[in-house]
């Protein structure tokens, strides 16, 4: 059976909650699914990951989902490769809490490292292949090392007539094995499926309108819900007049729970009209702080939670000893995920059981947190992942699942909710605003001898995890608190090096407990991060904290180089020690035909200044190398920045799918362009005013976008690393550096709007 009909078949779950039906639809042996219902306990059971069907096809189960990054296809390649079967003989089932191994959350570009090294899915594939070869050895009476596998057939190397198929060996039966930690992956040199540019599985269905997103889930008897969010940020519900919608066509029920308000109707348009007409009285809450003061407030807040990833050498002495010191402060705004489609979910709550279709990156945590919202037992909630619009972090996918669940519980019927554009944008968990102060002390040769970096960012809520539904708006309105903010000053001394937030610049040694795990040479170093309670809900937005920190560090290294009149690439290389980071810097510079010289240049023609800038990162300190050279034009009269060319070099270990990797680097870098030039959440005294695509401006398809060239460095023997968030991380600094190169003007506040550029150009003269 094909995947499409499986997806259709799974629709039956809403009504029947029928595991047996799914097993039958998938052609699985009874019992295979039992192993998978053990809520993650199955994860060391081979049958929880891989099933060989009677026709020799493979069904694999994964806890990491497709969110537009190409992971569904890449994971299918992985299973096909390890099991030595053709790509199209593998069906992958992703992130169904009743079927798949609990792999937590698909986030932080961790799926590639998690499932493509020897862990988890790769281990399952290798264990299954070795087990099948072992069975064949017994069946054929040939030693395992004298057997070879191709297309799901095991045969003797010496006598091809001695052969047996996977289906004959185990078709429809269980392996009854635990994952073998010593199972051997197929060596890279023998790959035929993995490492090749296999086309995205979903694409034909998507371009022909056949693909079923979560928005297209339709179950029998389904009603439509619409939520009514408060008109201002801290408002509370005083009263509502149900009579105001009584008698409107199709209206089924008005639902409230503390400050949560919603309407259920038979048709979507009826629900929307009723929600618009419903008279609700709200009491205004505390006003919002002025947007123009946000960075000052952040910097001056004294209730902070502090962390110190690194503190080595005599930092204070290095800055007070009369050395030349360079300083700069960088500012970053709140930004939003603002997914292409507003969030949607379908929930069916019947008595003490619930089924939820959601595009959540975190179906297992969602099962627990929605159980909390509904007052049910987590084991009675079944969450089924369905693809949604690209989320780039925690968008509305989870909160809308709560919306649908609450409304369904109130009416006892399945309810579909899709948020209004303004309801999603005004209330989502925004990406972090930041203030970052950088200081460097230089010796007489212009080499940096000490680096001090200190950052401030706001936090409130975030991913709900298993038990914090108040971390998102629906939970908050329904009466749950966000996880508490716990100030902590000063930060405890670091005891193990972690650069998970890229708070540590590339150029320091990262000395903690006698070990240097950073990527640079500067031995005297201190990094302090302060979290401050946010006025808005916040959450991970593609490259969270890492894009902001990298903007600061990679702009600052350029500022120091410029102060010394040294070429910024040469200056980077002078302070780097990690060979792979050095390699991506050199690769991008070479491909861009980088001309070594200090910035700024004086290239001008017809009122346009042109320049180039570089930035690089080892994402999260250990999860993907990337560098970019950006070439830009700046119109001196309007302040408009037009990037002409991005040259990107990336090293993410062994490449699973080169075209998929390129697609991520291209999209990531252009989304980075959008965030660098355009995106900023705005608000007034009462409410967020960025509520649609006119008030929150993104990069449209007609925009002037740079030509993108990509250099991939394949580390065949290395560990798989993440790829989805690296390119976006380096774009803001590369553009700032290119603008400086072109104009001599340093932009230290994102986004680089024409107004800001013009003001900076004017203040220069």
């Amino acid at each position, binding site marked *: 059976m094909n995947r499409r009909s499986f997806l259709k078949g799974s629709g039956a779950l809403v009504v029947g909650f029928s595991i047996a039906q799914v097993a039958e639809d998938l052609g699985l042996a009874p019992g295979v699914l039992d192993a998978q219902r053990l809520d993650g306990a199955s994860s060391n059971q081979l049958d929880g990951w891989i099933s060989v069907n009677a026709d020799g096809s493979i069904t694999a189960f994964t806890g990491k989902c497709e969110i537009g990054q190409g992971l569904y296809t890449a994971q299918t390649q992985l299973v096909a490769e390890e099991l030595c079967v053709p790509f199209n003989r593998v069906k992958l089932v992703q992130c169904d809490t009743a079927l798949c191994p609990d792999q937590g959350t698909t986030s932080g570009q961790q799926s590639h490292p998690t499932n493509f090294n020897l862990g988890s899915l790769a281990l399952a594939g290798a264990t299954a292949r070795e087990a099948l070869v072992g069975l064949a050895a017994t069946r054929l009476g040939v030693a395992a090392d004298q057997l070879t596998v191709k297309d799901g057939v095991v045969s003797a190397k010496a006598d091809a007539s001695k052969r047996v198929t996977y289906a004959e060996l185990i078709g429809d039966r269980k392996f009854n094995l635990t994952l073998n930690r010593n199972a051997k992956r197929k060596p890279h040199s023998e790959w035929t499926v993995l490492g090749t540019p296999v086309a*995205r599985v979903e*694409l*034909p269905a998507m371009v022909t309108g*056949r693909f079923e997103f979560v928005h297209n889930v339709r179950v029998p008897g389904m009603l439509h819900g619409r939520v009514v969010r408060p008109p201002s940020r801290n408002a509370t519900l005083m009263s509502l007049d149900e009579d105001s919608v009584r008698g409107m066509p199709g209206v089924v029920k008005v639902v409230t729970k503390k400050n949560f308000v919603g309407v259920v109707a038979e048709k979507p348009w009826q629900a929307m009209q009723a929600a618009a007409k419903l008279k609700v009285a709200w009491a205004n809450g505390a006003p919002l702080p002025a947007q123009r003061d946000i960075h000052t407030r952040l910097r001056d807040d004294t209730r902070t939670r502090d962390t110190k990833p690194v503190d080595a050498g005599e930092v204070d002495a290095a800055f007070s000893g009369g050395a030349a010191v360079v300083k700069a402060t960088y500012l970053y705004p709140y930004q939003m995920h603002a997914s292409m489609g507003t969030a949607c979910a379908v929930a069916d709550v019947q008595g003490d059981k619930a089924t939820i279709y959601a595009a959540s990156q975190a179906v297992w945590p969602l099962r627990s947190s929605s159980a909390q919202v509904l007052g049910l037992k987590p084991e009675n909630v079944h969450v089924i992942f369905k693809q949604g619009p*690209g989320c780039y972090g925690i968008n509305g996918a989870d909160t809308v699942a709560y919306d649908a669940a609450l409304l369904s519980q109130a009416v006892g019927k399945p309810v579909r909710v899709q948020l209004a554009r303004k309801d999603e944008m005004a209330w989502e968990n925004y990406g972090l605003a930041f203030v970052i102060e950088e200081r460097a002390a230089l010796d007489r040769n212009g080499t940096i001898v000490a680096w001090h970096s200190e950052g401030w960012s706001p936090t409130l809520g975030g991913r709900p995890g298993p038990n914090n539904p108040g971390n998102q708006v629906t939970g908050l309105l329904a009466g749950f608190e966000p996880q508490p903010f716990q100030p902590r000053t000063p930060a405890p001394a670091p005891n193990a090096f972690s650069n998970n937030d890229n708070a540590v610049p590339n150029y320091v040694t990262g000395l903690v407990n006698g070990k240097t795990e950073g990527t640079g040479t500067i031995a005297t170093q201190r990094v302090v991060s302060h979290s401050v309670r946010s006025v808005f809900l916040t959450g991970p937005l593609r490259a969270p904290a890492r894009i902001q920190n990298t903007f600061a560090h990679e702009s600052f290294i350029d500022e120091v180089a410029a102060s010394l009149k040294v070429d910024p690439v040469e200056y980077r290389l002078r302070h780097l020690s990690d060979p792979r980071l050095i390699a991506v810097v050199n690769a991008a510079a070479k491909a861009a035909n980088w001309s070594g010289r200090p910035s700024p240049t004086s290239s001008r023609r017809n009122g346009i200044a042109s320049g180039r800038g570089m930035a690089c990162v080892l994402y999260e300190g250990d999860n993907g190398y990337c560098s970019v050279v950006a070439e830009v034009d700046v119109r001196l009269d309007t302040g408009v920045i037009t990037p002409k060319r991005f040259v990107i070099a990336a090293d993410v270990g062994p490449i699973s799918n080169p075209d998929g990797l390129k*697609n991520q680097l291209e999209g990531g870098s252009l989304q980075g362009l959008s965030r660098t030039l355009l995106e900023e959440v705005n608000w007034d005294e009462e409410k967020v005013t960025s509520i649609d695509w*006119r008030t929150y401006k*993104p990069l449209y*398809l007609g925009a002037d*976008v740079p030509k993108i060239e990509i250099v991939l460095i394949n580390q065949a023997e290395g560990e798989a690393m993440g790829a989805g968030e690296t390119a976006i991380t380096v774009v803001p600094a590369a553009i700032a550096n290119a603008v400086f190169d072109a104009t001599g003007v340093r932009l230290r506040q994102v986004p680089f709007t024409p107004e800001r550029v013009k003001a900076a150009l004017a203040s220069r003269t």
Partner: protein
Amino acid sequence: MSITLKVNGQSHTVDVDPTTPLLYVLSDDLQLNGPKFGCGLGQCGACTVINKGQAIRSCVTPMSMVSGAEITTLEGLGTLEKPHPIQQAFIQEQAAQCGFCLSGVILTAKAYLDRNPKASEADIRQAMSGVLCRCAGNNRMMKAITRYAQEVKA
């Protein structure tokens, strides 16, 4: 109110509040997956369908205005087995990430190029200036559209 229109070559009569936007009839009553709700404001293009050769935004087009219309959605262009050339161009260029914007991108480009077969790249960019791909697949999408444009010209 009873309204009759053709969708992907098939005639449908629906009994509906005439202020209902076309999108809801297509995705809810007729259960089509192609047109998507992106913003409900005509700002992103995800809901785009073609009416008699013209790309329209179905999220802001009331049913009262489409009586007698001949609507084409992504489903009406080609099939899984035999995609339309512009759909094929998107597959060949692997021009998608999450895929949610494709209805707007493909149908806007098709309607424009079918009426302006000699369009330059700048013209195409102008035509696509109100269409959003939030994953920022701009380069691949423009390549796919250009590939189709060359076929239209040829």
